[in-house]
């Protein structure tokens, strides 16, 4: 099957204050997506302030120079739109998706908080409470909370930026101060450290003017120097386990370091194919073996990046496998079988058709994502920020299609037990 390509236009410009802009008009539906991405994430949090990048993201919705508390949401939703933000390892994004008529309003709102959020003690305390409830919902009050994205990094990594809990400890969140927030904004929320992307139904020339009008007076501040977060690869296997008092069944996740997603993109791409060869659907290697034949796991997934952000993460990162086991399941046995299947792949290569069908399915997943305006605006902003290459959004299916069997086999051969970090969930629930 021939892998199709998309031709979304990509226009780039940089404002005088250093703000980078990516524009991708497409009039197939009367909606627009607006994304602003700041080059700061969980890895940049200071020690003693775990969870701060995410807490700060919340504060960006609490009003700004010309916007009162609650108004951001009201203005976006009152324009028929939706909004949110999310905090990742290497970036924090903010977005709106709206009927086309709301575009200028979204630009205004983003520019206003780029000039500065309204930071108050009351809002800070309120959002610390909200974030604690978010952590309770997503981590503390449910089985497998934070597994593996919060649980595996401390096993794999040894430095604070890479290993710490990005949701944050309650103690750290509670000790956050307004001064911390002001300093964080000053340092990281510089417009030179941001990218704005707009995708969807708009006129290019008119929108360029609107962007200059609204963002032109954001004070120029350069991007801070970004530290290299690299760590040496593992030379001996690391393994830890913990008891999850709410989990009725065991689970296990392993990660292996992969090549630098940006510095060595050619070396990295085969791992994205490998992850799907191993776990995408019933015809994949590990689902067939572990789920269908051995019945040693009930489900298994494989992906790149602890937050699944394969094209939106910098070095160091990992290929992850995570599996849920049946009652009494033996994680050790699962790991041995994974090793066996990786050996088989590395030794015998791929089966006829296996690579092509995996590539075809990856193309479908990718095209499906980018059919949505936000599915283009958000990744384009990150691709611009991390790589200066937003047009990669059109090129991914082709690049995936060019990955060779030799590359996939070579990638599989690097997933050795001695390079592996593993975390096991022991069921602590009575069920």
């Amino acid at each position, binding site marked *: 099957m021939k892998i199709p390509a998309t031709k979304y236009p990509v226009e780039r410009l940089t404002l005088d204050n250093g703000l980078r802009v990516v524009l991708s008009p497409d009039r197939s539906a009367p909606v627009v997506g607006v994304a602003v991405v700041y080059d700061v994430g969980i890895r940049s949090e200071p020690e003693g302030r775990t969870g701060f990048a995410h807490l700060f993201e919340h504060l960006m919705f609490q009003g700004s120079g010309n916007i009162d508390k609650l108004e951001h949401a009201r203005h976006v939703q009152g324009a028929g739109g939706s909004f949110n933000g999310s905090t990742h390892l290497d970036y924090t994004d903010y977005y709106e998706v709206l009927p086309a008529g709301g575009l200028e309003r979204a630009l205004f709102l983003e520019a206003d908080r780029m000039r500065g959020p309204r930071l108050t003690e009351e809002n800070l305390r309120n959002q610390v409470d909200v974030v604690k*409830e978010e952590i309770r919902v997503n981590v503390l009050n449910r089985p497998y909370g934070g597994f593996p994205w919060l649980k595996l990094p401390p096993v794999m990594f040894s430095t604070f930026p890479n290993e710490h809990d990005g949701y944050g400890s309650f103690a750290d969140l509670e000790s956050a101060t307004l001064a911390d927030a002001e300093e964080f904004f000053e340092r990281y929320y510089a417009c030179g450290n941001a990218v704005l992307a707009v995708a969807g139904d708009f006129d290019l020339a008119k929108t360029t003017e609107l962007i200059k009008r609204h963002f032109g007076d954001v004070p120029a501040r350069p991007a801070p120097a970004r530290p290299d977060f690299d760590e040496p690869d593992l030379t001996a296997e690391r393994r830890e386990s913990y008891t999850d008092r709410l989990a009725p069944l065991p689970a296990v996740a392993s990660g292996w370091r992969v090549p630098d997603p940006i510095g060595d993109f050619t070396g990295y791409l085969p791992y994205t194919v490998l992850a799907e060869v191993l776990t995408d659907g019933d015809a994949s290697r590990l689902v067939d073996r572990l789920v269908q034949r051995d019945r040693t796991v009930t489900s298994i997934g494989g992906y790149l990046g602890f937050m699944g952000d394969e094209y939106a993460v910098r070095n160091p990162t990992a290929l992850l496998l995570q599996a849920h086991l049946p009652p009494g399941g033996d994680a050790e046995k699962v790991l041995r079988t994974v090793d066996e299947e990786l050996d088989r792949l590395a030794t015998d290569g791929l089966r006829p058709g296996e690579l092509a069908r995996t590539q075809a399915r990856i193309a479908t997943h990718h095209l499906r994502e980018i059919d949505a305006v936000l599915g283009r605006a958000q990744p384009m902003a990150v691709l611009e920020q991390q790589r200066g290459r937003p047009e990669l959004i059109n090129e991914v299916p082709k690049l995936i299609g060019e990955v060779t069997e030799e590359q996939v086999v070579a990638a599989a051969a690097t997933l050795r037990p001695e390079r592996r970090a593993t975390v096991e969930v022991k069921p602590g629930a009575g069920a």
Partner: protein
Amino acid sequence: MSTHVLPGLAPDSKIKLPRSAERTLASGLTVIAIRRPAVPLVELRLRVPFGRAPLPRATLLSQALFTGTGSMSSLEIASELQAVGGGLSAGLDPDRLLVTGNTLAAGLERTLEILAAVLTDPAYPADEVGTERERLVDHIQVAQSQPAHLARTALLKRIYGRHPYAVQTPEPEQVRGVRPAQLRALHADRVRPDGAVLVLVGDINPEKAIDAADKALGSWTGPGKDGNVPAIPALETGPLLLVDRPGSVQSSLRLAMPAVPRTDPDYAPLLLANLVFGGYFSSRWVENIREDKGYTYGPGSSIEHFLAGSSLVASVEVATEVTGPSLLETVYELGRIASLPPGEEELEQARRYALGTLRLGMSTQAGLAALASMYASFGLRLDYLVEHSAALAAATREQVAEVASRYLAPAKAVTVVLGDAERIEGQLAALTAVERDA
């Protein structure tokens, strides 16, 4: 220079429905094909009437639908689909068996052929069914450790009583007893084209896509079965039902209220009243208990539609220590929307949100497919979007207030709370009568 004044909104263009075609095949299968060529894919949704099907068997059938045909193993089904960039999966709700899938546009015919083989020539091999049965049991066991699932289970039981909707997840023990032969029998009996609707959306010529579906699925025949579920019972108010989850660091509050189907004249005003109350971020409930009080990460309130009736459910997870205060604020906000008309501006805001959400929902292939398939299963077509938009645009403040007084009155709500009973029973009992789950 910029003066930093909030810009107004450019007026929306008229809703433009995508090009589509529809045909009911000789077998009774309705095929709806919709053109949105933005990316070279096709989204597929098939809904087959499944009301009153025995739950453990139906649930396992949905999990095991792709385990094999007379000529293909599960592995072959999956790899043949993958070869055209395709994928299919199945799920179940109390009314329908739902097949969801997508494929590269050039793979549509092949994907339909494989779907046809699964529908007309299923094998349910004992080995594979055994695997899926164990997976389903494990999956249910995990679900039963999740507060959201437990709260929902308790709420369904409480509001539906002896109605078939009361239980929507089978017990592990019931699933363990299901045999492959029973799946084959259920499939033969219920996986029938009569009354089913297939929706195809994407980079297609609608007429040709229907031809392709006709060709591939022509051999899928057989009479449908009357799966009509009796109308849901009226809500029976009573004491708050408290379900104990010892050690829970949050409480899950669920309030069910009456609602109406999409075609009812009350629907648009009710939808708006619900938005103003708690149906989106800029609602009173969210602004109160999240943005003012910090009791929760995210409350939400929405109208759920089943074939046999609709209900309105408000859901929130709150810190254990503020369970009582959260209920107090919730009842206050319901009482306010039920007793006083909404403000002009907050109603306009909710209206624009409702209208905008429709446009956003239509803006992708997957969104269109979900809408078209869902509407079709209620006998509606995409042109309902136009009609519904007009109703939303026309609803007056008086209508919204009047409808809110009838549907959102806290006195009519059925309340279930899941949490650490020892720590929250006193808080709740200070506000209302409480009964413990047996």
